[in-house]
């Protein structure tokens, strides 16, 4: 009996050559790949063709070489959008990381109510952006908003104009996006903190290390993979910031909060300049790609 089964088994194994594995593998992937290929991969590839064409929705795509890119070099609005995106990124990343790490360190302690706070901090992240932008607009209202009411109570004679002031609109956007995203990154940091073995801290304590030294020499190095992931995610997230700005300030006042994504949207969907919008998209694409590659390279070198 046993030998017959063993024989069968052997034959079945022989019946599964490489090409069958390939067939099985593709059959698993195909249902998803069809949708993913048509609706994501093809557009990504087409982008690089459209960027070199002059095209609106009614005509045909006409090859114009690098015309779109030379036009971009003389386009002030494009550079304003680029500058604003960099401004947003430069403040949003450190603020969100600082807040998220600070909260994670706090929640990693034994305090009553941390479970409740973890829920609270994550809540903004899963709330729809339309509702959020609307309520923050009320909160930021220079005259009637509770934020300026608080600031006045604290003694600020001339609180900022927030979303209606060209100088304060970007800080307002950054406050909202930090508020919205810190809970998400806090969770990631918290998961990273949980993987650090307690013995490390105990040993450091025996050696007489203070809490700052423990943080510098144990917590930060152990969190490196987590920090790396957070920085990459935050960078990509910052460069593509769009819906929040669209709903909160609509790029204004003036062009004070116009960002790259919104500029693509304006050129592509409001002015139907698909070719030029694609060219700007290529720039956005290239920036995100380059930064990710650099971050991976730096991370690899530091790890070795």
């Amino acid at each position, binding site marked *: 009996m046993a030998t017959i089964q063993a024989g069968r088994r052997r034959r079945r194994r022989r019946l599964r050559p490489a090409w069958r594995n390939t067939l099985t593998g593709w059959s698993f992937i195909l249902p998803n790949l069809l949708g993913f290929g048509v609706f994501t991969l093809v557009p990504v590839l087409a982008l690089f063709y459209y960027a070199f064409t002059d095209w609106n929705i009614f005509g045909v795509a006409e090859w114009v070489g690098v015309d779109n890119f030379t036009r971009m070099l003389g386009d002030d609005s494009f550079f304003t959008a680029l500058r604003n995106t960099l401004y947003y990124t430069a403040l949003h990343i450190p603020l969100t990381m600082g807040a998220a790490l600070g909260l994670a360190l706090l929640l990693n302690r034994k305090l009553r109510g941390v479970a409740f706070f973890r829920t609270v901090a994550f809540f903004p992240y899963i709330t729809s952006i339309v*509702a959020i932008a609307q309520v923050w607009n009320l909160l930021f209202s220079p005259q009637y908003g509770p934020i300026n009411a608080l600031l006045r109570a604290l003694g600020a004679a001339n609180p900022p104009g927030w979303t209606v002031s060209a100088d304060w609109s970007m800080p307002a956007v950054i406050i909202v996006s930090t508020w919205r995203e810190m809970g998400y990154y806090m969770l990631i940091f918290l998961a990273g903190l949980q993987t650090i073995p307690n013995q490390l801290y105990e040993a450091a304590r025996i050696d007489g290390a203070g809490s700052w030294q423990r943080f510098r020499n144990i917590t930060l190095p152990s969190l490196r993979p987590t920090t790396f992931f957070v920085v990459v995610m935050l960078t990509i997230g910052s460069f593509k910031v769009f819906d929040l700005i669209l709903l909160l300030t609509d790029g204004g006042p003036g062009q004070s909060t116009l960002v790259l994504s919104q500029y693509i949207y304006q050129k592509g969907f409001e002015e139907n300049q698909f070719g030029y919008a694609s060219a700007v998209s290529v720039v956005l694409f290239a920036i995100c790609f380059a930064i990710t590659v650099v971050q991976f390279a730096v991370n690899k070198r530091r790890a070795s």
Partner: protein
Amino acid sequence: MTGTLLQPPALHIGAGPAPTSGNRRRAHPVWRFLGYLTLVVAAAAVLLPFFWMVVSSLKANSDVNTVPVQWLPDPVVWQNYLDIWRKSDMTTWLGNTLLLSVTVTALQVFTGSFAAYGFAKVRFPGRNLLFLAYIGTLAVPWQSYMVPQFILMSKLQLSDTLWAIIALQAFNALGVFLMKQYYETIPEELSEAARMDGMTEYGIYRRIMLPLSAPGLASLTLLTFVNTWNDYLGPLIYLRSPDVRTIQLGLSTFISQYNADYALIMTGSVLSVLPIALIFLLGQRHFVEGIATSGLKG
């Protein structure tokens, strides 16, 4: 057993603070006090917008913007919650959004977990390259290819139909990525033993992997549902006609239409947030694990 890495002990929400053990020392009372103070201030700051949303929705419109600020509704006006249904197409929006969220989630969970099995457990040439293409698009912002995608959808006559949103959301690389991470924590010996017993790969997927990855599937289901429910940009670009509007798009058109009716706008906002809040509170453990999975090992 299936994933101790995915469930760091303290991430179980609701467990409450563990009794004092020898692991970590109790901090000095002053530090504890400062810790609590920071927690309370941070919680208040995080909750203020939600508080303001609910409070404003219960006010008469003339009481929303006042000097000095009116922190509590007086009188409490419930009428807004009746008026909103009359003044807006809330029912259509909610219906469309529910339909989309359910369809997209079903497609994403099925095709995503199916493909993830191929990537995680079956060896064949070209597999790693293909997976790289999936991962690569996770690092590319959607905003950078929304224009060619829109052109394609228009050519396929999908624009201005709910199908556009399904096509856009259902085959997201996130599902494949998340489920692959999960499958890789399941020991290879299990599937090897099943192969010995003559089970096909499809059988292994259905009878072994699916049941063992239930927590991963739950995370993916919740994340996809919430993402689809909250999506604003997709509907903004693809949906024009009033009868295909989703709740997010509907709410934003409502806002521009009744732009001075703040109390009513806040009522609509509360209603658009409420279903997600409930889902989150019921399934928050899975959210947390899903994020820890896709985050930690990303």
